[in-house]
């Protein structure tokens, strides 16, 4: 426990230093925040060994545990760093041992940041899931997954598909393969370059099928993967919320009306106090779960719901504290808020998450 906390703190310090240094450079900052992609920043994080944080030692990874990874995601949120980090820090290490032959080669390229490989999981869309979920029939993979993050830039996809009524299969798809189309979605959130992925009779055979739906490990692997993803998204939301709070407090100290800082008005203080309550709750909740050797899947759904709602509310309050400027593009902080909206909708928003948690509690599947 102590060791995990120390490692998380060390990782957090190192990442904080890296982002401070990199984002102090105007070119990096501009690229990251305006275009939603900075090659330099991506390379810097890859070189820092981030994509090995969760990879097992038997594969030459660092195996630092979810506490360290969560610390990274918290900082990705705080500094609004764009990139398919969920995919490279979580997904590829989790599936690495199932990747053989040419897929292993591709994963190795992804591991060093030289190629973008992203997850295409219908469950990420929650209620917005397409009815045309990809189905693997024999060697044929057909279907659509909307809102794949960095879908247009990716060179390969890890697709979670179904086989008839059976649960999930995991398939690697090359972006250049016959039948693969990506349609970019214009997003209000500049740092989440989403695209719809269409798979039209894509051939999937041999090593491309990482896990088959009839394999016993498949369900458990996919379930764990989604649990870790929810945990990391919650951590990133906590980081975003922290930034929204700190910037609002800074603004309330500086902005003057009626001859004094607006932060001296009790009405404004009440808003900021409420924001602090939510931010500390989200930080404590996510880091507590991340420090566990294995987080419970349903409890992590509750965490995701909590962090989503907290960050959304903190974001809305941040707009209120900033007043008129908050409704213009001039306020940089809006980018953090729009990112919150993207993450809120990933893997079930707060309403869906609370409903799933409540059902588990009421049917006895989850004991308090």
């Amino acid at each position, binding site marked *: 426990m102590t060791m995990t906390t120390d490692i998380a703190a060390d990782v957090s310090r190192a990442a904080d230093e890296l982002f401070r240094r990199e984002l102090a450079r105007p070119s990096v900052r501009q690229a990251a925040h305006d275009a939603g992609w900075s090659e330099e920043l991506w390379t810097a994080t890859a070189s820092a060994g981030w994509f090995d944080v969760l990879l097992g030692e038997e594969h030459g990874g660092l195996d630092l545990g979810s506490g360290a990874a969560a610390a990274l995601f918290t900082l990705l949120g705080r500094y609004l760093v764009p990139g398919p980090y969920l995919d490279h820090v979580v997904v590829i290490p989790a599936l690495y041992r199932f990747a053989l032959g040419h897929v292993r080669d591709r994963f190795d390229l992804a591991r060093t940041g030289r190629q973008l490989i992203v997850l295409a999981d219908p469950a990420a869309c929650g209620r917005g899931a397409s009815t045309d979920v990809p189905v693997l029939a024999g060697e044929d993979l057909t279907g659509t997954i909307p809102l794949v993050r960095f879908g247009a830039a990716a060179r390969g996809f890890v697709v979670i598909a179904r086989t008839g009524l059976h649960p999930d299969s995991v398939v690697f798809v090359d972006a250049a393969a016959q039948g693969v189309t990506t349609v970019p979605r214009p997003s209000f959130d500049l740092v989440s370059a989403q695209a719809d992925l269409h798979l039209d009779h894509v051939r999937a055979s041999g090593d491309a099928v990482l896990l088959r739906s009839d394999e016993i490990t498949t369900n458990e692997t996919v379930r764990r993967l989604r649990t870790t993803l929810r945990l990391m998204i919650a951590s990133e939301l906590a980081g975003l919320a922290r930034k929204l709070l700190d910037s609002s407090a800074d603004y309330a100290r500086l902005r003057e009306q009626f001859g004094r800082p607006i*932060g001296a008005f009790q009405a404004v*203080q009440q808003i900021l106090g409420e924001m602090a309550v939510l931010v500390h709750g989200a930080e*404590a*909740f996510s880091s507590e*779960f991340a420090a566990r050797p294995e987080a419970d899947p349903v409890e992590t759904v509750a965490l995701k719901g909590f962090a989503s709602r907290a960050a959304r509310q903190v974001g809305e309050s941040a707009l209120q504290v900033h007043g008129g400027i908050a409704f213009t593009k001039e306020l940089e902080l809006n980018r953090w808020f729009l990112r919150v909206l993207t993450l809120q909708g990933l893997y079930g928003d707060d309403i869906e998450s609370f409903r799933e948690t*409540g059902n588990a*509690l009421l049917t006895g599947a989850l004991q308090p």
Partner: protein
Amino acid sequence: MTLGMSTGGQPDVEEFRRQARAWLADADIPVLPPDYGDRPQLLRAWHRTLYQAGWIGIQWPREFGGLGLSVHHQLAFNEELVRARAPHPAGAIGLEIVGPTILKYGTPEQQARFIQPLLSGDEIWCQGFSEPDAGSDLASLRTRAVVEGDDLVINGHKVWTSWASDADWCAVLARTDPAAARPHSGISYILVDMRSAGVTVRPIVMVNGDAEFNEVLFDQVRVPAANLLGDLNGGWALAMDTLGWERAGYPIRRRGDNEIVFRDLLDHMRQELAGSEPDAHSAIAVGELYAQLKAFEALTTRTAQRLAAGQVPSPLDSLDKLWLTRTEQALTSLGLDLLGASRAAPASDEGRMRVKRYLYGRAASVYGGSSQIQNTLLAERLLGLPRAR
């Protein structure tokens, strides 16, 4: 009780927890009657039972009769109490609030006189701080104490005094220097025997029908000057210390109470469902509440580390208090709402308890410093905003 000691002299927390769990499994745990007035005797007996078994004063120094263990051991025991659905001992105010202040500021004579009966539960404490015109603005209190020879003579009026009708002793804040430059610097902290002549306790019946609070009137009450804790006119620092412990420790204890209420409510909802599909509204409400309780649990883990490191008081105490309020009010509101049209006149005892808890829960955003005060404290002390005056 025998404890497996590790080399550091402290038993492992988890081993300690297992011992507590085993003891509680065989203990004769009292079931609290719905009427508040029927509880004190049961809780006093429970306090004595716990004391005799060696479970009181877990983190108190050994030389004062405690076990000399860490706050983590105390919290593990509290969690086991919750698990076993066992109540807290009667002397919680003494153990958690007044006691630590006597340990820190009392003379050796005061400690020798007060600590042992406080631990054993033979003497139950209450806390005479709030007054009709001094609630959130505590420093404006008007109860007076005048030095007359070897005595202090107290006159005044305290209110919202929990447990006063059943307490043996009261920690009273009184103004001893009305001419002091600042109101904070003329206040003393006095230990008063509730059986003293001139002390009158009037129970205050709450909106839920219980009488946990009281008014306490002091009419020419003579107290030996030896019962002054700390310096004359130096009581404010002690009071703030006491409140620091209250703010940090109370939410942790109360969180456990609320978790029992949550489990009971969930059991009840499951029974009503009898295997049928939960409706979306109830599922969302239960799921959100659970998430909030979990977030609060995670926060109190941090609080425990803060307590263990002696970082009390802290601006984060206000944050815990606000979290307690949030969860308690959400929980008790859901319990009430599920009663539907019968929420003001439920048919069962269980339903009546839910209404009582809901009404009691409304006080959570007022007692111990209102939510508005706590938010202001957070804004100033945690976020560094300018003082609003």
